[in-house]
């Protein structure tokens, strides 16, 4: 590549000299000047400067300077440069000019990235939304997909975990359209990924634009992988002749958004005794804590035996975070490049060894090696290192579980320095339980290192001639994971130093996994304009993908030292190995036709035919078509004047229909296999292999299909200051794989291969409004997006029947995995009420203080005077009916402020298993509000008694409103005046303070409302808020 650049430059110089010499023959008037970028005052090299209506022309040099000999000082000069708005400047007799070029960003000329190409925004017929990230991104997101929060209508992001490395958000575009994998296809610089991982790993500052292809007309070009929507990301490229160095950083601190409050030691001890008392029904019982022990708890005089530990406060903490980013970019008229380096360092809000570091390497190069031939390469490498205690991220859920699972009477540490495991009642007849998980020990015990090496490269050669272009690109994606977990030998002691349990052997587990994907894509494009009014574009393509995963893991025990963490460190016992492997292939043919008549009537058709190895021979290929049309009403001659006089510069109607598929399902489902991973013991303790049918295959399996239509309206008003986009969509998904088929246990298989059985409907309305204006030095922009969904509905299960999977119901006419449980009518206050009410779960123990459940049905479908499983009903909606985002940007004389709000409404979450249940077992603590439980003295009407018969069964009591509005991001910056900077040869310095998740408005207490819909216990690290400060430098 360097060779080409070099030779081009050599060629260039004599040519320019010749040009200057030729001009000099005719005229004597010389104009000089410099051209700069209007936004940062950087010199622009390579700007084409022509004297209009003459052949006089030149280019600006590396300092942006130019000298042009003109015919007349009354002429007009045209300054043009790719990516900038052309400017015509009348010389007006001057011989020294200073020109500032604005970047091309005019709404009507905006170019939007679509599948396999770009499109002028005004000519779009599908539902496509873009987020352009032109300035440096400072938002402290460790997963780049989180830049999408609040920015896109119809797109819901949900973060369920706050641990570095596993704190990515899930994304749903236009509702949940499958029972299975709903991850959208991600396309980064033409490379295709099935998950969000590569997107999340990008350095945010490398991203130029994020585009969501929402409807089927936009997504059908990705065929069998387009049904969940497509996210297309482009990374920043260099700009010709503008060498630029940018550096930015931030340093910040993270803090849990919400801290759960549990009962303190004495309240816990009293309530757990009360539980045993209530369970004994007036008979003798062994209290957990004796009177004497209660006194010790009360007065805190023996904290080694009876402490008052707030486990959540012990475990959660503030954690640091920092980020550095450096980029170099530039190029000349034929070659542009941009290289960058990113570093992210993130601690965890959970105590212990958890820590993540990420290094990003990127190099984007593009060169026009011939006037008809362009080569380009995009390289992205990431090295991600996560360290933690033995077991890695997996131990966090146990640490969170310990908040309620551990008695607050157990000290965090004993006086002798060891971790606390027991309180002083652990040898009582009714013994108190030791910590099942000592969270502080778990956080520090042993070592875990996970290294992730990720390399993505796309190499493309593109030839163009006479309206045709042919591009062939090869993509390589490589991902290696190398994990190592070392667990030392352990001794647990009680407060007196007695050993209570021990693990004598240390152990090491290592695993290595490799994923690679090779893709070849060949694209033929043709573009033609006929009779100046008919614009036609054609695209034909072919693509093949080979994808393979391999894994290998091993473990070994009994190393001579806890300090040796390698397999050859002397481990001598229990060697074990295991592995995994799978492969898949995809072959596709696709095409697109765009037609536009005077940019007024727009038509587009797409088709893709995908063949996937996931399906059996008879079902391998699927065809996915789409059609769309647009009518730019504002371009109609008879309306144009009328509209523009009303300030309406653009008005467009869009309509589309198409089919897309989802092949994001398991491999080899069509192929009946026997599970070879079983084992038994024979002889003198020899392990022998076993084989069995553990899953039933489905030879007729096919991809899932979504048929979607979309009607949209785009408008620009008030001189383009106000823009509006509104869409109505209707997504009908069918042939959905029904994996939770209720199989009778008598079939004897663990699972049944999915069947293409179910149908689901998502529909809704999206609205995006943007307003921007500048009043003197005060510039501002406001954006609002609102999405209103109709309730997600399973419309058919085919021949299948409803599935009740724990707390979740999948039934025709309800949302997928709707919350399913009992309805609480109130709390029994008297024995008479109990006697006169339906029998509650056949329990003879129901008593005043227990929940009174509604008798809704029975075996015959009518209330039967008995509360049992037949009385369950839908008690909550997992999917929000509203999404909203609001962003505002202000700038005034170097000070800028941006604010982003994001929220959801009309959504529920099951909150159970983290202390919400009133002492569900013999050890657990409960959230602090349980102090107000029902007792004869305190006949609560909202909280039942402790130790009741059936109060822990899932009911609407455990369903909470998960609506929230969150200040997702706020950033205040100050850009130092340029005059100050020029002395130190800097283009710009901006200082900023930024915050993420700082404020959340919600009804939910104790826990963050943002959480996965189907994870009722959700024992993940809590979400965090971040405050950062940093600077952006460019020179």
């Amino acid at each position, binding site marked *: 590549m360097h060779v080409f650049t070099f030779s081009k430059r050599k060629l260039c110089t004599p040519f320019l000299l010749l040009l200057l010499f030729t001009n000099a023959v005719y005229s004597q008037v010389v104009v000089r000047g410099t051209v700069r970028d209007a936004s940062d005052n950087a010199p622009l090299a390579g700007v084409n400067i022509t004297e209009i209506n003459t052949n006089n022309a030149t280019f600006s040099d590396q300092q942006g300077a130019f000298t042009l000999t003109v015919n007349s000082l009354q002429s007009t000069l045209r300054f043009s440069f790719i990516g900038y708005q052309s400017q015509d400047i009348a010389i007006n007799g001057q011989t020294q000019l200073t020109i500032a070029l604005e970047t091309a960003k005019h709404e009507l000329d905006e170019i939007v990235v679509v599948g396999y190409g770009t499109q002028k925004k005004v000519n779009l017929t599908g539902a496509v939304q873009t987020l352009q990230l032109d300035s440096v991104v400072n938002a402290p997101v460790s997963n780049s997909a989180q830049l999408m929060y609040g920015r896109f209508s119809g797109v819901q992001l949900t973060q369920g975990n706050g641990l570095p490395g596993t704190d990515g958000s899930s994304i749903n575009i236009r509702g949940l359209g499958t029972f299975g994998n709903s991850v959208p296809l991600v396309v980064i610089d033409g490379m295709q990924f099935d998950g969000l991982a590569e997107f999340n790993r990008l350095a945010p500052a490398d991203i130029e634009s994020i585009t969501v292809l929402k409807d089927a007309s936009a997504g059908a070009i990705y065929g069998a992988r387009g049904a969940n929507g497509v996210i297309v990301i482009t990374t920043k490229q260099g700009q010709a002749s503008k060498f630029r160095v940018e550096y930015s950083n931030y340093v910040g601190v993270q803090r849990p958004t919400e801290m759960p409050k549990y009962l303190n030691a004495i309240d816990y001890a009293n309530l757990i005794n009360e539980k045993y008392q209530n369970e004994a029904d007036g008979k003798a019982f062994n209290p957990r804590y004796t009177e004497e022990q209660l006194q010790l708890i009360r007065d805190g005089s023996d904290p080694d035996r009876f402490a008052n530990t707030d486990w959540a406060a012990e475990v959660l903490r503030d954690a640091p975070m920092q980020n550095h980013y450096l980029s170099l970019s530039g190029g000349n008229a034929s070659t542009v490049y941009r290289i960058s380096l990113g570093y992210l360092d993130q601690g965890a809000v959970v105590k212990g060894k958890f820590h993540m570091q990420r290094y990003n390497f990127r190099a984007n190069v593009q060169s026009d090696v011939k006037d008809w031939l362009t080569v380009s390469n995009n390289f992205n490498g990431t090295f991600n290192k996560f360290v933690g205690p033995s077991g890695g991220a997996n131990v966090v859920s146990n640490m969170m579980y310990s908040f309620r699972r551990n008695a607050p009477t157990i000290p965090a540490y004993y006086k002798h320095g060891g971790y606390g495991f027991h309180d002083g009642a652990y040898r009582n007849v*009714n013994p108190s339980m030791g910590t099942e998980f000592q969270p502080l020990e778990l956080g520090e015990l042993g070592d875990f290192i996970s290294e992730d090496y990720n390399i993505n490269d796309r190499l493309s050669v593109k030839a163009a001639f006479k309206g045709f272009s042919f591009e062939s690109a090869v993509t390589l994606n490589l991902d290696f994971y190398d994990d190592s977990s070392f667990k030392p030998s352990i001794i647990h002691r009680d407060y007196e130093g007695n050993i209570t349990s021990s693990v004598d052997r240390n152990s090491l587990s290592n695993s290595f996994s490799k994923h690679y994907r090779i893709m070849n894509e060949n694209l033929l494009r043709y573009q033609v304009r006929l009779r100046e009014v008919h614009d036609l574009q054609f695209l034909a393509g072919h693509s093949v993908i080979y994808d393979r995963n391999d894994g290998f893991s091993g473990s070994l025990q009994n190393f001579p030292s806890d300090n040796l963490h390698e397999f050859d460190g002397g481990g001598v016992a*229990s060697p074990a190995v295991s592995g995994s492997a799978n492969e898949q292939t995809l072959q596709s043919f696709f095409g697109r036709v765009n037609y536009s008549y005077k940019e007024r009537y727009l038509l587009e058709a797409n088709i893709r035919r995908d063949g996937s*190895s996931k399906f059996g021979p008879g079902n391998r290929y699927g065809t996915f078509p789409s059609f769309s049309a647009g009518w730019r009403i504002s371009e109609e001659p008879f309306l144009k004047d009328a509209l523009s006089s009303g300030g309406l510069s653009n008005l467009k109607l869009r309509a589309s229909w198409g089919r897309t598929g989802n092949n994001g399902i398991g491999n080899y489902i069509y192929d*009946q296999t026997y599970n070879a991973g079983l084992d038994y013991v024979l002889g003198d303790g020899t392990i022998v292999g076993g084989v069995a049918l553990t899953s039933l295959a489905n030879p007729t399996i096919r991809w899932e299909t979504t048929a979607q239509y979309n009607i949209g309206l785009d408008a620009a008003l008030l001189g383009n200051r106000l823009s509006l986009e509104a869409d109505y969509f209707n997504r009908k998904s069918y042939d959905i794989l029904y994996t939770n088929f209720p199989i009778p246990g008598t079939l004897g298989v663990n699972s049944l291969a999915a069947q293409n059985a179910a149908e689901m409907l998502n529909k809704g309305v999206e609205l995006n409004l943007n307003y921007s204006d500048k009043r003197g030095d005060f510039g501002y922009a406001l954006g609002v997006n609102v999405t209103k969904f109709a309730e997600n509905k399973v419309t058919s299960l085919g021949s299948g029947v409803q599935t009740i999977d724990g707390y979740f119901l999948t039934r025709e006419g309800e949302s997928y995995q709707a919350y399913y449980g009992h309805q609480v009518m109130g709390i029994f206050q008297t024995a008479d009420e109990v006697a006169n009410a339906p029998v509650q779960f056949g329990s003879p123990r129901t008593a005043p203080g227990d929940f009174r459940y509604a008798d809704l049905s029975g075996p015959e479908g009518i209330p039967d005077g008995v509360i049992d499983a037949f009385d369950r009903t839908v008690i909550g909606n997992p999917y929000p009916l509203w999404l909203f985002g609001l962003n505002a940007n202000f700038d005034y004389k170097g000070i800028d402020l941006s604010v982003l709000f994001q929220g959801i409404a009309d959504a529920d979450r099951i909150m159970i298993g983290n202390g919400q249940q009133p002492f569900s077992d013999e050890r657990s603590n409960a959230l602090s509000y349980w102090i107000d439980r029902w007792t004869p003295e305190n006949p609560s009407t909202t909280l039942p008694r402790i130790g009741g018969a059936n109060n822990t069964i899932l009911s609407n009591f455990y369903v909470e409103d998960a609506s929230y509005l969150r200040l997702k991001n706020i950033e205040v910056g100050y850009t130092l005046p340029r005059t100050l900077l020029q002395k130190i040869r800097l283009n710009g310095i901006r200082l900023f303070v930024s915050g993420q998740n700082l404020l959340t408005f919600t009804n939910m207490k104790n826990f963050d409302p943002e959480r996965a819909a189907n994870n009722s216990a959700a024992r993940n690290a809590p979400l965090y808020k971040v405050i950062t400060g940093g600077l952006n430098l460019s020179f």
Partner: protein
Amino acid sequence: MKKILITVIGLQLLFTGCSESFLDRHSLTQLASDNFWQSEKDALLGINGIYDVLQTRQLYSGNLNGEAGIPMYDNFTDNSYNGYKWEGPGNYVEGNVSASTTGMFMNFWLANYRGIVRSNQAIANIGKMTAEQIESAAKDNLLGQALFLRALFYFNLVVYYEDVPLITEPQTLETAQVAKNPKSEVLNQVIADLQQAAGLLPATQPADRFGYATKGAAYGLLARAFLFNQQWDNAASAAQQVIGLNQYDLSLPYATQFTEEGEHSKDVVFSVRFLEAAGFATNETFSSTYTAQPKVDKQPMPNLVHDFYCTDGKPITESDLYHPDNPKENRDPRLLASVWFKNDVFIEDRGTVFTGNNVTGFGLKKYIRTKNSALGTSTGGVGGQDFYVLRYADVLLMRAEALIEANQIGDEVYSLINQVRQRPGVDMPTVQEAEGTGLSQPQLREIVRHERRVELAFEGLRFFDLIRWGTVGEAYGRMVADNLNGYNPRYQNKRSETFPVPLSELDANKALVQHDAWK
């Protein structure tokens, strides 16, 4: 020219990988089903796949801190108290369970059917194998395994759920919605399978296949099924078949029998094999215990401890040898092998003393580990102790009981019981010495039932015995009389003697109906 060249190369690329084989991919880690069951090796793998089911926690490997399996089933009875009631038995005894909330019912059901379906596959496919594919002796042996195992799984179901779907052929999804069959039909199938298996199986397996069912295992289980079906003569003769094999004896001391040292003893007629090994799911948890007090979820109840005789063969209420101040003294050695008393060291490698700090005041000793394993695993972790499904002592007592019930009372009845009593390390007085001669049928019935209780305590057989004797209600009386703090046994007739069909199964299979007692 160059342009043409590039276009040609591009078009070549366009057609790479177009062949159909590019898209034809199969699992790299699983066996294709269409060419399985072709050789003896395949058949062995298939049989091991059935055995794998036996290691399910809710069948034979549980339990510590999880849903109860058969090793915990004495908790349904007057033998032991389930400190962690939520594991299943504790709540069950208190009448505080339902088909929807108790996972134990579901997982016991699922595991047995998983085994049945794997057996059905093996029976159908091994049966079809040709002489070229498998030698007839090997074929008989493996077919016998599958039949034996199917019978074992069905027997588990019929004892605890009574009427259950009887499926003897491989099913498809379309044929899976099946109704229940009457208990008697299921039991007849069990008997038929065991009779066939007994004919096919060898008397012994080679040493490297120890653990596979033998002729003795099939006849022994057959005796158990006949006893359950009250076919006394058949039960007696099935038990006699085991005895007649001359493969079994009671030479190993009783206490040693319930450690890993006892796994290969001649008392073991059929066991579920376990091994503690890194990376393999072949371990068990029924032999594990907490260290603050012995086995919280299975505590010997006082009425059982008091039911063990003194060394003179007399009950504690009659014997002069009994000292209430030192209840361990002069007691049936089987008691001392099965139960920890206050002040016993129950964690040997740490010298941890049982302070009597549990609800019943007695700790479970039988099968329970007393020190870290050779692999360093603590007593609270997983272990590798085999679980004995069928012991020779049980066979002897079954024959004795069958003869008594058939009223064929003779010297043999005494001799059978005496063999059990006079095992090394037990050496209790003979029936003649302790209870006398010329005993009546009811007297002998009581003797053999008592002998079963003390010999087989905590081995998961008590509930089965009480159900078939029709004395579950009486056992509840003893449980209530023990008056344990925080334990409220409530006898609810049939509901205390059967399991409900799990709700998930009723949800999935519309042809099923709930057991009458659980409606």
